[in-house]
């Protein structure tokens, strides 16, 4: 049965103790007493500066630039790298990997194809480590090599992941060494079993 997790939407600053939404009167610097739970907390309030998006209208341009495909009044500043649509600065979805229109950006993002926009991924390093640990446990049952192979498979993926993030790969390399030992121990175990059954040890 699928587990349903109810996630409360974040609406803005709230009391860190009772999670009651704070109105703008209560967002201030100093010791704040929550109006709901009457408990205190230390706070530092900020007013985020509003960035002004500079949008050039078509009429304002001297040479009569192309209009944005989504906003007819706005002058296009670039074109989408994927579909070639002319887009204005409002529609320009650029996160350091090129300019895309909102539709293409959403499609690429949902497929984790855009670098820097992936918000979900599998932790292959932990999977490799746990497989290796399970392998050590099952080595005594003669099937540790299966987990060793699995650990090597995940470690390969994990190494690629850690390298792309610029993180240390030392731990995962140690996991790989142990996984290789598990595989070798498994092979040795079954070779010994076969030799013993065939009477080679006598």
């Amino acid at each position, binding site marked *: 049965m699928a587990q349903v997790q109810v996630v409360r939407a974040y609406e803005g600053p709230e009391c*860190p103790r009772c999670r009651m939404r704070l109105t703008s009167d209560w967002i201030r610097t100093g010791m704040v007493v929550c109006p709901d739970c009457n408990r205190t907390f230390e*706070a530092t309030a900020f007013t985020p500066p509003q960035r002004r998006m500079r949008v050039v209208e078509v009429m304002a341009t001297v040479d009569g630039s192309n209009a944005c495909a989504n906003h007819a009044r706005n002058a296009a500043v670039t074109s989408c790298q994927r579909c070639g649509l002319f887009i204005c600065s409002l529609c320009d979805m650029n996160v350091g990997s090129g300019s895309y229109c909102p539709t293409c950006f959403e499609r690429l993002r949902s497929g984790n194809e855009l670098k820097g926009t992936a918000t979900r991924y599998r932790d292959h390093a932990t999977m490799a480590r746990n497989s290796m640990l399970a392998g050590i446990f099952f080595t005594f049952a003669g099937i540790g090599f299966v987990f060793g192979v699995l650990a090597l498979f995940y470690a390969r993926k994990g190494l690629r992941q850690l390298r792309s993030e610029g993180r240390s790969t030392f731990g995962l390399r140690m996991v790989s060494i142990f996984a290789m030992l598990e595989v070798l121990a498994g092979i040795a175990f079954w070779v010994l079993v076969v030799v013993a059954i065939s009477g080679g040890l006598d």
Partner: protein
Amino acid sequence: MSARPPERRLIGRFTTAASREVVWETPDGLEIETRDQYDVSRKAVLFEDVQLVTYHRQLGVVFFILNAVGMLFFLMMMSILMSMKENVAGAVFGLLGVPFVIAMAIRAVLKVDVVTVFGRRSKAVMHFSFKKQRARQVYGTICARVRQVHRQIEQQIAAEAAADVSPLETPPAPPFGPIESTNPFA
């Protein structure tokens, strides 16, 4: 495949029975990694979006209740065994309950320091059970970084606004010296 900027620093954690959150500091803001078994989801609180940073100390009621339940269980077992004249077994159960008492005592004395960063779209929570000075330092660092980023953006906006303002066409200055009247009836 994830792609994160390599320059990030671990600044805090928030672990509950259901989830584990790790908070990293990046040049742009805070990055929160929520682990659900082997799936990691990531969200960010940008410094330029921060509205409120809070700091408080709490007891952690759930932790206290769970430890109290554990302690009561072992105390109950001990008292039952003692009443049955099984003193050694009773003492063993009594000893097993001691870690729960110690955990509760430590928590009651130290409490948990919580730093919460509220942005426009998301928030980051960090719990510090033992490192009180570190909690204070993280709170100060985040506030300083937010202030710095906000100041930078304000300067940027001001510079852009100044560049946008075209110089007004001023009327010609009046001639120097006394103005001679051109009115023939004067």
